């Protein structure tokens, strides 16, 4: 392969963004994905950040946080957290990217605490992830695919997916559409429109379905039309590398 796994994931994220959409971006891979989408097929997409920044083009220089000056300067609008969250809560945000330490088969995410060797490990908490998970038109989840991160049921729901399955979000009165896709380091999942369970829709080049099953804590559902994840096109890779020339985010 002439690309890294993370480059593949960035390109997969970029492909989820449609032109003209308003996107809650987040940092790292989705930030790069947003830049790639803007460069290629979604020039009119707008990125929103929790700190109050609204941008219609990528940051002026590589950044570690959304409040770094290159992400603020020459943005479309600088406002406050309540403003951008109001846009989210009023249905103006089409898409949000989130992640977590654990995900379960209904796409629920946990970033509060996990257990390692029988010992409780405290994680940082929600940040804005619960807000995006509940309220965005649809969510894309990006995860490292390891068995310990894919339990059948998360210990704590920080950012709700489909809860316990069909009808759960409606019962909780959640306004957003819920997770649409999970992009992992092994494959890409969608969700069954009835049961709301994660379904493997593609495996990355060089990865087997068996391998994915081994790294997943429940009996994997596989889409009838499962296929290999489409490799990045040359222009997609060029865009990724334009925004991460040193591979800070995309070296494996």
């Amino acid at each position: 392969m002439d690309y890294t796994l993370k480059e593949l994931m960035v390109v997969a994220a970029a492909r989820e963004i449609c032109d003209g959409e308003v996107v809650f971006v987040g940092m790292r891979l989705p930030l790069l994905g947003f830049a790639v989408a803007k460069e290629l097929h979604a020039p009119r997409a707008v990125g929103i950040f929790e700190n109050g920044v609204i941008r219609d083009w990528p940051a002026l220089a590589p950044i570690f946080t959304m409040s770094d000056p290159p992400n603020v300067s020459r943005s479309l609008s600088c406002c406050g957290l309540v403003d951008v969250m109001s846009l989210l809560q009023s249905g103006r945000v089409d898409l949000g990217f989130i992640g977590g330490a654990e995900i379960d088969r209904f796409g629920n995410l946990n970033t509060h605490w996990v257990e390692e060797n029988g010992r409780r490990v405290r994680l940082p908490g929600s940040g804005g992830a619960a807000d995006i998970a509940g309220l965005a038109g649809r969510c894309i989840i990006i995860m490292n695919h390891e068995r310990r991160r894919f339990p059948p049921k998360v210990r704590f729901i920080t950012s709700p997916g489909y809860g316990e399955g069909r009808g759960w979000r409606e019962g909780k009165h959640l306004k957003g559409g819920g997770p649409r896709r999970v992009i992992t380091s092994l494959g890409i999942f969608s969700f069954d429109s009835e049961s709301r369970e994660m379904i493997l829709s593609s495996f990355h080049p060089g990865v087997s379905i068996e391998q994915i099953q081994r790294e997943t804590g429940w009996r994997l559902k596989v889409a009838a039309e499962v296929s290999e994840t489409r490799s990045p096109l040359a222009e997609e890779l060029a865009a990724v590398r334009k925004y991460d020339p040193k591979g800070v985010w995309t070296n494996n």
Partner: protein
Amino acid sequence: MSKICTLREAISSIEDGAAVAMGCGLESLIPFAAGYEIIRRKKRGLTLVAPISDIQFDQLIGAGSARKIVAAWVGNVAAGLGHNFRRAMEEGIPRPLEVEEHSNFTIALGLKAAGMGLPYLPTRTALGSDFSEAPHFRAITCPFTGERLLAVRAVAPDVAILHVQRADSEGNAHLWGNLGVVREAAYAAKRVILTCEEVVDHEVILSDPNRTLIPGFLVSHVVDAPFGSHPSPTQGYARRDDDFYFDYHRQSRSLEGFQEWLQKWVFGAGDHEGYLDLLGKERREKLKPGRELCSPAVNFSV
């Protein structure tokens, strides 16, 4: 009446056990200089309030200043987990810690409620999130539509410590760049302590009233503290010092490492000027922003 004072005087006005909002710009405008002075003044039993505070809360927790955290996220934004936060939560080191769990939106709404003089605000967020089972949230029903909503209890800090670009001696403050929940915190708190990059003439404030996001009558102390947000950025004045965060992450992994870090950067530095000396001129120069990117004038003519 000038409110200008030293950082020490401003921080000394905070009582042990107070609820303190700080780090309200999210990853920028974090009043680190004020946080270090809180540690030097050995404040105890504080409740710390902010959506995320990058490493500021982790520092204050490790130093033993905090009893409770009201936050959506505690860690190290660029590097990952907060080691002191973990030690406190998992082992009660240096002391046990209570957490009032929020999302970014719910803590913002809690502050907003207090700043509006309300005991709560309703929201649609956090429904279905396990942390919303806590007693600072309540399930409510819209009196018009019957829809299920979540009530977020007001969060009213005793004091908000805010770092801003410029303020006059009365505390009227100009801010720009991303605003996070700075304004909500200023309105929510009983009073505001400002640290600022520049103290400016009242005339500068009047020349652009749309940038005055904090009126002076909310402010009790104004501290002239250039680079007072280091290592966090302040738009137009200071870049983010990424290495500082990574170094902190590495050193704070062990309790001993953190103590050494604290000894060097907080106690050893002695005060904000000593801290800047310790950073060194070269490093400070590197953190200064590059080529000016100035806003165009707007006309307030009458």
